[in-house]
């Protein structure tokens, strides 16, 4: 095992990890504000994948160009889902909310299965096999573009929360729901917006990841789990932590594939998760222990 093999694995893991991070960001935003664990996470992301697939087939649109469209569509989906369904269970115990979202997740997977069938389907962009070299470091264009796309979307999101009035209002809701209501914020609309924004992240992440992997309805539960692992490692509710966790998981998966075998990569991620829970249960960048 020489240095460059490892370096290549780390680089490729880092790039994919950024996309994972963007997806986990969607989970973190929703949990951080609405305090709901979105169990339909991977499912919404895979919807974004299939949407980008259709755009590619019908209009020949590069998945990266579908990102804004997929994000907008999933924003609408998330907005309506929160307003019409999820908000109605906010008074129920956690496990009922979990069940509701798990059932919605099952419905999404089955619907995708009915429409698209069980086969894996991907896109072939012109630059799919192109790469460039830095020393002996070989970087694939699709991975690089995917990572750049993820960084752009994530920066937009972080900027939104930091600088816009709506973003600040949402953070106010997250900090103190009652207080937000007292000062006259429309909390239920902001919650719907938040769910929409989280889902938009997933739509974007789905469209981006279509550059790297083929779409498949059964991918969804795996992405859900992956995002959970990332978010716990990074710290549930910490946006920056989600990105860091994503990169960590991406790199650990890539290293596991090189050092052991590709099928061991999830075991590595879960081992990392268990380690983090043992040593720092609030996550790497999480704040308080609950």
């Amino acid at each position, binding site marked *: 095992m020489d240095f460059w093999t490892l370096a290549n694995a780390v680089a490729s893991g880092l790039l994919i990890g950024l996309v994972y991070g963007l997806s986990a960001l969607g989970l973190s935003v929703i949990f951080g504000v609405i305090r709901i664990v979105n169990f339909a996470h991977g499912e919404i992301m895979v919807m974004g994948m299939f949407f980008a697939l259709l755009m590619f087939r019908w209009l020949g649109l590069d998945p990266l160009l579908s990102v804004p469209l997929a994000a907008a569509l999933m924003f609408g989906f998330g907005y309506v889902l929160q307003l019409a369904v999820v908000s109605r*269970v906010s008074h129920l115990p956690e496990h009922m909310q979990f069940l509701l979202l798990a059932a919605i997740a099952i419905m999404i997977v*089955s*619907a995708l299965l009915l429409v698209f069938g069980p086969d894996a389907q991907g896109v072939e962009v012109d630059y799919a096999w192109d790469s460039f070299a830095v020393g002996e470091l070989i970087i694939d264009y699709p991975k690089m573009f995917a990572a750049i796309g993820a960084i752009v979307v994530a920066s937009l999101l972080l900027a939104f929360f930091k600088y816009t009035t709506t973003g600040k209002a949402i953070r106010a809701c997250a900090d103190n729901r009652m207080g937000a209501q007292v000062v006259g914020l429309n909390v239920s609309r902001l919650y719907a917006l938040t769910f929409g924004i989280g889902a938009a992240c997933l739509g974007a992440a789905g469209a981006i990841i279509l550059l790297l992997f083929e779409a498949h309805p059964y991918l969804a539960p795996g992405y859900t789990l992956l995002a959970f692992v990332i978010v716990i490692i990074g710290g549930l509710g910490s946006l920056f932590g989600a990105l860091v966790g994503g990169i960590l998981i991406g790199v650990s998966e890539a290293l596991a594939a090189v050092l052991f075998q590709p099928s061991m990569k999830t075991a590595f991620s879960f081992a990392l998760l268990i380690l983090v829970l043992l040593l720092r249960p609030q996550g790497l960048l999480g704040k308080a222990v609950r």
Partner: protein
Amino acid sequence: MTAVRRFFGPLSPAGLWLGGAFLLLLLLLPWWGGSYIMTVATTVFYLALVGQSWNLMLGFAGLLSIGHALFVGIGAYTAAYLFAAVGLPPAVGVLPAIGLAVLMGLLIGYLGFRFAIGGVYFALLTIAFAEFVRVVIDHVSWLGATEGFFLKVSEADRHGIDLANLRGAPEMYYYLIMALALGALVLCRYLLRSRLGYYWQAIRDDAGAAEALGVNVLRYKMYAVAISSGMAGVAGVFYAFYQNSLFPEIVFNIERSIEATLGSIVGGVGTLFGPIFGTFILTPLGEIVTEAIDLLKHWHVIDPETKLDGLKLLIWGFIVVLIVLFKPKGLWPWVCVRLRLTRPEAEG
């Protein structure tokens, strides 16, 4: 009779009669139902057993597990491996199976509770462990890895009754799982009204207050996890010898864990009869949907060539959504009131 009456205390006479009649119907099932109905009923009782075990953790002690397939799977693999490798009959193998499942439960519980990892975090920890063990077994060649682990079964096995080796006719499996599920029900009834059960409920409702009153929260949570995972381990042994094939991809699939929760949630979390009642609704419902689709295809109402792989789950998911939205306490409490199955003073 008085003991029975005391046991089912909250049931009204109508409830007792209806329950008795239903039980009789199930006991006589091999005489009136075909092999298909018996297969469905076996699945129902199996899921009721797993559901009862899951319900003990969440409904009694307030610990949400979404990784129950892990305990079932560990029980299944342990007993199956011991049987295949050293010929240990499952009647004995069930003990190490329970032991390992409980150990795994205690490990997760310890990791979780030591750091006060509650609620969602604990649930995610259970998923993480289930996935971790699945991937590990995927790579353990002496457990069959992804190729699956198979138990030999001969044609002659399908006719006898060999409880020690869990080899026999479908009727044997049916009565066995029925006995196990009802046993679990009785155990839960006993636990719920024991000192331990009251501690659990106190912890579930307010862990802080329970702690302040001197309840050793960590210890009793660990008891709940241990008993629950042990029960799931027993279910796993049954699963292994009923299916005779184990694939990590199937046994530890998160869908198995979700399946374990659904019956209880539909029936009513924390209720005694909820898990069994819920599975009695959900499983046949799923079968009816499948049958209805086949019939429609047969009559050419829908094109037989259409692939409707996801339709059953789609409808099923929709029903669950409806229940969560409109009957969040589960169907059992509602049915009890409607059919006056319980005495009015014993509501809830």
